[in-house]
């Protein structure tokens, strides 16, 4: 059984190209380790995507396994479909909740006609198994404010044809999906031009404030009722079925597979909506999972901040801030170590100098989020602190390189020549004359980098690197302003503090003669 998986996945990986060589090795390693891991009780790792329902399902799976005496842990909100799928195949996680429509469209890239059996067969070739549906169909849907829908007489998606002026806000994933906005617009011949991409949680707030009129949603989304929205009928049957299932590695220990299968058919739509609503109301996924098991949750004493049980707010704040400083500080140090020498070379001009400045500028034009996403698939990086530091380092490079180069180039020719005419060696000229004279410009470059890094480091939470982005991200996800501010305010204060610290440093490091 194991051997057949090995050879099949090996064959597939060969066709997938060289990029996969690393994961092939790790797959073999994981397969070899499985029996050992079981014996020593290495926990089964459950992953989940970055939205409420996925968190709740992940939590339920973890609880089911633990109840069956199988050690399990839950890696929350790891990102979108592709990241979870890669993590499952790479063995970083053992199982995660997925939807049949997503499997056919995004993972297998097929038409939606596949039966459950066909899907299961295709997945088996990747060494991945699938449970029976859990019981609810969480399809995509378009929603709008009930009041508007009634006023305009909109009941189904095809009714939108009559109102081209409606503003549409869609999640970025929906905008790009094969079963997403583009084919939907074609099928229904929708005339709306004003379409924007917006985070799922923020989209509800935008809808409430009438910044947008229509958005995409999941049909089991608790916010639909909370915000008094209605789901537009998919009268042309555009959306495929999105039956919730668990995907798992076929090599996962059999008792864990059996435990997951006990969840099949236990969750209908009503129940899922209630669990989602509970998760959003309490800001606590574990409590929502409790509801599934009908267990009374142990209440933490007094009022507690959302999502993290048992850790006081000051303690969390210190943890976030220290990690944030570690991310920003370490990357800044690297930017300085590499940026100043590169700036010195760049200041001499020529093709190499142009090349250095060009490279640093190009890096800067890549949106920070995209830079993170580009680094994640590279070997050595992946989903780690390393990746965050590498991205921040690349980001911090340009201001330092450019300011070092321009600071040196701005030294008047007469002073350069005076230094040469004195007979100073080129090293002495650089260290005692040129660099001190360019110090103001270089320091201001470092200051810019530092402030940028403090801000950008909040994105590190997206790849699980922590920092003050952690509360911002979970706050965005829960649409909880207090949690967002718990990260945003300290991050802003930190940026101010860094600015102030560097202003102080200017007085120490810039020679007095240049400050008169």
């Amino acid at each position: 059984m194991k051997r057949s998986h090995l050879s099949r996945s090996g064959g597939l990986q060969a066709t997938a190209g060289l990029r996969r060589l690393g994961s092939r090795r790790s797959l073999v390693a994981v397969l070899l380790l499985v029996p050992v891991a079981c014996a020593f009780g290495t926990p089964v790792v459950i992953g989940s995507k970055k939205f409420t329902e996925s968190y709740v399902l992940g939590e339920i799976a973890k609880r089911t396994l633990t109840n069956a005496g199988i050690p399990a842990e839950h890696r929350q909100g790891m990102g979108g479909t592709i990241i979870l799928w890669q993590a499952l195949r790479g063995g970083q996680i053992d199982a995660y909740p997925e939807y049949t429509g997503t499997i056919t469209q995004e993972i297998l890239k097929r038409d939606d006609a596949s039966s459950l059996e066909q899907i299961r067969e295709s997945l088996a070739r990747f060494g991945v198994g699938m449970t029976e549906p859990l019981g609810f169909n969480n399809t995509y849907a378009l929603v709008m404010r009930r009041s508007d829908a009634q006023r305009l007489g909109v009941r189904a998606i095809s009714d939108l044809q009559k109102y081209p002026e409606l503003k549409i806000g869609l999640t970025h994933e929906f905008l790009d999906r094969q079963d997403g906005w583009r084919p939907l617009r074609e099928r229904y011949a929708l005339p709306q031009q004003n379409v924007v991409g917006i985070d799922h949680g923020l989209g509800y707030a935008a809808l409430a404030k009438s910044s947008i009129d229509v958005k995409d949603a999941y049909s089991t989304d608790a916010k639909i009722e909370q915000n008094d929205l209605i789901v537009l009928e998919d009268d042309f049957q555009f959306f495929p079925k999105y039956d919730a299932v668990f995907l798992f590695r076929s090599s996962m220990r059999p008792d864990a597979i059996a435990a997951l299968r006990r969840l099949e058919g236990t969750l209908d739509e009503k129940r899922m909506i209630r669990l989602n609503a509970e998760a959003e109301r309490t800001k606590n996924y574990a409590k929502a999972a409790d509801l599934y098991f009908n267990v009374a949750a142990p209440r933490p004493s007094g009022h507690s901040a959302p999502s993290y049980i048992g850790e006081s707010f000051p303690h969390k704040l210190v943890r976030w801030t220290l990690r944030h400083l570690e991310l920003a500080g370490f990357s800044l140090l690297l930017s300085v170590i590499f940026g100043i020498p590169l700036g010195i070379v760049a200041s001499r001009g020529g093709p190499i100098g142009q090349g250095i400045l060009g490279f640093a500028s190009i890096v800067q034009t890549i949106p920070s989020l995209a830079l993170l996403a580009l680094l994640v698939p590279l070997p050595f990086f992946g989903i780690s602190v390393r990746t965050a530091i590498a991205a921040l380092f690349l980001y911090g490079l340009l201001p330092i390189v450019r300011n070092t180069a321009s600071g040196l180039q701005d030294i008047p020719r007469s002073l350069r020549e005076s230094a040469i005419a004195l007979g100073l060696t080129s090293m002495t000229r650089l260290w005692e004359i040129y660099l001190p004279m360019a110090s103001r410009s270089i320091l201001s470059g470092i200051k810019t980098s530092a402030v940028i890094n403090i801000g950008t480091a909040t994105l590190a939470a997206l790849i699980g690197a922590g920092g003050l982005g952690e509360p911002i991200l979970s706050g965005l996800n829960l649409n909880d302003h207090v949690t967002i501010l718990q990260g945003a305010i300290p991050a802003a204060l930190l940026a101010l503090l860094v600015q102030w610290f560097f202003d102080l440093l200017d007085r120490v490091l810039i020679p007095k003669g240049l400050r008169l």
Partner: protein
Amino acid sequence: MTALVELVDVSKRYVDAVALHPTNLSIERGKTTVLIGPSGCGKSTLLRLIIRLIKPDSGRIDFGGEPINPENIDSFRRRIGYVIQEGGLFPHLTARANVLLMARHVGKSQEEMQKRLLELCELTRFSGNLLPRYPVEVSGGQRQRVSLMRALMLAPELLLLDEPLGALDPLVRVSLQKDLKEIFARLGQTVLFVTHDLAEAIYFGDEIVLMNEGHIVQKGTVTDLRDKPANAFVSEFINAQRGLVLT
């Protein structure tokens, strides 16, 4: 025989124009040689070639009988003092640090440096109280005195001055001219002085070298230039400037 610097067929051209045609020139020891001519005549180029801020395209420059080349230039530079119009002082260093910069690098002792510094202050009439000041904190005339001290610190055999008084107002200029001439005489200094001002050339020059369009047109005393002009340009240049000086 007594020439300290000897230029043999030295030429320099820039991308678009010839700056100096092949030129021969000897700079005598203990004398002040003045290079004069209209802007762009090649006088500054000649000076910058000697201290090798620019490389000659052809020819050879000997210093004390030894040819200067890229390998040994730094040791020659320490035997040459160089002062430019704006002084060329480093703004992040005090007057004192500017003057001592090079001495520190060749490893002079503190006492030696202190002694030389006092000598130079006395020589250039620079008040020791101003030594801890930064260049921006002293006047233009004082800056040139500091620049001169820096150039003289290691007792150079040759002093190159590129319009050292060009940026000063007339009163300061006159007093510095007097002081400079006195200093050259006291030190028996070999000087190569670039100016575009004939009166200044006459005042300083034991020997005047008149240049035009990258050529040396005539070399001699002011009397030679006035009484035996080599060509029409020489008379024209002398008369034009003399007219200004005398009226």
